[in-house]
């Protein structure tokens, strides 16, 4: 079970920036001249790191640099990273669409890649003909397709139209048919792009569900490229985080997700301590389900930790109130020591207030967190800021059913619920 099925060694990929123009020919000639003399490609030595925020100094950029990883039989490996981290490039190399500039990938199984569904669909051909064509493009033989033909047609739900040219199909039908073909692919290693999950919510669910079947029940090896953390969390057993073309983190799914979320543009934090008349806020952090300062996941644990230093601790009874506002400044929820009878006469100068939420049920989105600190003894507001910090909630497997709600049409929050059907 735990044999290495695929290994990547020193994979790098260099791209040339700018347009293909007059410089191209001279560079090509230079390269050719170097190879004639048995020298190394002169342009491999240069090249900027793949960091989009900086203007590159050379014409060449490393989309991937020295990537090494192993995939074991039965793994569901999530490859995550921000846009431009090199995910798609790695995906292209894995699916042999393009070759790496340096390095080798060795594999023991047939790789089939699903970077898109319905590749090669011809509008003039009928659904049935396209099943064969698309299946063959994805690497199935005619015999294999014939065996699964009925199953595919049934799965797609297009029985009625299967002998009609695909150009007459609605876009939804086309996607369903294409996905049905893809879902019946049986390679040793499946490489899937998250673009698969494009489409309506129902289709996304179907796609994710089928992916779960493939990886869970069939024990197939899957490489799943995504920046949808919820999908990664529910599908993958292991993960790799790519950053600027390099592997930044490798490990269990939870750690990967947490690492990725913590790296997400959270740089603009307040500078502590924040002083006010009676004291100061020495620290405030929002912690995710495993205790990292990062974005929060729907349905998971999280906590808000506030450290206060109050000048006269013994004489103040502190009430802390967090308020979560949406971007229309509408109050979504309040977390208040007062309601929980947790107001406190401080015992020491330095005191921390941690609010734990066992299951976050605010629907995914971007929120402002406001903080109010009140002295109940003097009835005086010591500190108040309604846009103290930004909180990002990402969708997650809130009901532990594998159904990850899409961001739309959820309302403000999700309730725990049970259903009784009589």
């Amino acid at each position, binding site marked *: 079970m735990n*044999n*290495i099925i695929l290994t990547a060694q020193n994979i790098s990929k260099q*791209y*040339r920036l700018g347009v*293909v123009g007059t410089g*191209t*020919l001279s560079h*090509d000639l230079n390269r050719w001249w170097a190879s004639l003399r048995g020298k190394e490609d002169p342009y491999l030595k240069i090249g900027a790191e793949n960091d989009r925020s900086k203007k590159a100094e050379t014409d060449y950029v490393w989309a991937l640099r020295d990537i090494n990883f192993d995939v074991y039989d039965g793994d569901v490996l999530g490859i995550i990273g921000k846009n431009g981290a090199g995910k798609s490039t790695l995906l*292209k*190399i*894995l*699916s*042999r*669409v*393009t*070759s*790496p*500039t*340096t*390095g*080798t*990938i*060795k*594999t*023991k*199984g*047939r*790789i089939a*890649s699903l*970077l*898109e569904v319905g*590749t*090669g669909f*011809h509008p*003039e*051909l009928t659904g049935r*003909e396209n099943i*064969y*064509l698309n299946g*063959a*493009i*994805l*690497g199935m*033989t*005619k015999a294999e397709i014939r065996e699964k033909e009925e199953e595919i047609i049934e799965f797609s739900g297009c029985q009625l139209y299967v002998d009609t*040219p695909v150009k007459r199909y609605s876009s939804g039908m086309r996607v369903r048919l294409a996905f049905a073909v893809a879902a019946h692919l049986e390679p040793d290693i499946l490489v899937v792009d998250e673009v698969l999950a494009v489409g309506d919510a129902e289709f996304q669910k179907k796609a994710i569900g089928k992916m779960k079947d493939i990886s869970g029940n069939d024990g197939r090896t899957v490489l799943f490229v995504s920046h949808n953390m919820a999908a990664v969390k529910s599908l993958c057993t292991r993960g790799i985080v790519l950053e600027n073309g390099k592997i930044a983190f490798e490990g269990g799914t939870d750690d990967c997700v947490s690492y990725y979320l913590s790296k997400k543009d959270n740089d603009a934090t307040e500078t502590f301590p924040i002083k006010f008349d009676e004291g100061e806020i020495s620290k405030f952090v929002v912690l995710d389900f495993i205790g990292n300062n990062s974005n929060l996941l729907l349905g998971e644990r999280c906590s808000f930790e506030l450290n206060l230093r109050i000048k006269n601790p013994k004489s103040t009874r502190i009430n802390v109130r967090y308020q979560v506002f949406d971007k229309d400044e509408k109050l979504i929820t309040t977390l208040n020591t007062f309601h929980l009878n947790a107001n406190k006469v401080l015992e020491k100068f330095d005191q921390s207030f941690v609010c734990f939420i066992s299951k976050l049920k605010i629907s995914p989105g971007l929120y402002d967190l406001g903080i109010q600190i009140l002295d109940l003894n003097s009835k005086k507001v010591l500190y108040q800021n309604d846009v103290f910090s930004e909180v990002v909630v990402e969708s997650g497997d809130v009901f532990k059913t594998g159904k990850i709600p899409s961001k739309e049409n959820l309302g403000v929050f999700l309730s725990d619920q049970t259903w009784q059907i009589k």
Partner: protein
Amino acid sequence: MNSTKTSSQDSDWLYEIKAEKKLLDFNFKEIWRYRDLLVLFVKRDIVTVYKQTILGPLWFLIQPLFTSVIFTLVFNNVANIQTGTVPSFLFNLAGITAWTYFRECLTGTSGTFTKNAGIFGKVYFPRVIMPMSVTISNLLKLGIQLSIFAGFYIYFVASGKDISPNANLVLFPAYVFIMGMTGLGLGMILSSLTTKYRDFTVLITFGVQLLMYISAVPFPMSEILEKKPEYFWVFKYNPIAQIIEGFRYMTLDTGLFTWWGFFYALGFSLVVFFMGLAIFNRTEKSFIDTV
């Protein structure tokens, strides 16, 4: 334990994805595994060309027929080019049938990378399947066009014209092979160059038209030898002209055939094919980055 594990693993890798390129990496085993795809591509090419047309596959016949009629009018009636005992129309039809096959192979394969960038960018299969399928589907079209040529041939024989093929007809498969290989080879070279330099798309469209005239399609090579002998070398060393002339020689027993010309064209086609394959193999690895 660890070392035995590694050594056993090293031996049974199914394949490797790497940067280095072999010059001629023609993996027959893999292409064989994808043979169904080849067949489906051929089928797609044939079936979809004239979908939603009234005349349908008749278009395969109309094109060479009308071209022959125009050629006969312009070159034989107006420009007064003589074709000997052979009816001019049949002479032209023979040249056009052979030329069309070559031209379709060339133009069809020369767009391989640019036209299929969408598919090639998303999924892997041996890229060479694509130009191969073009050549094969053109072979089927050639078959259809040869049948109309045969039809007119019989008609002219029946109406008392003195025409007959000669013993060279046994070379027919060889000629088809040479035309296919030359078209495929040149097409693969051009398609590889087009991925980076689009200049070649422009070149192909008018280059092919010009090539037809220096390939002796609408007139016999003897005409050049007679009227402009100083330019004869252009036709002598043009393998396509040799093929066209040889094709007419074996079917209509007219024209200048030399074994030198035949082997020259054969040699040229093989060189071009393997060159094309080598360049194509180099290009397919990373063309998606430059296309």
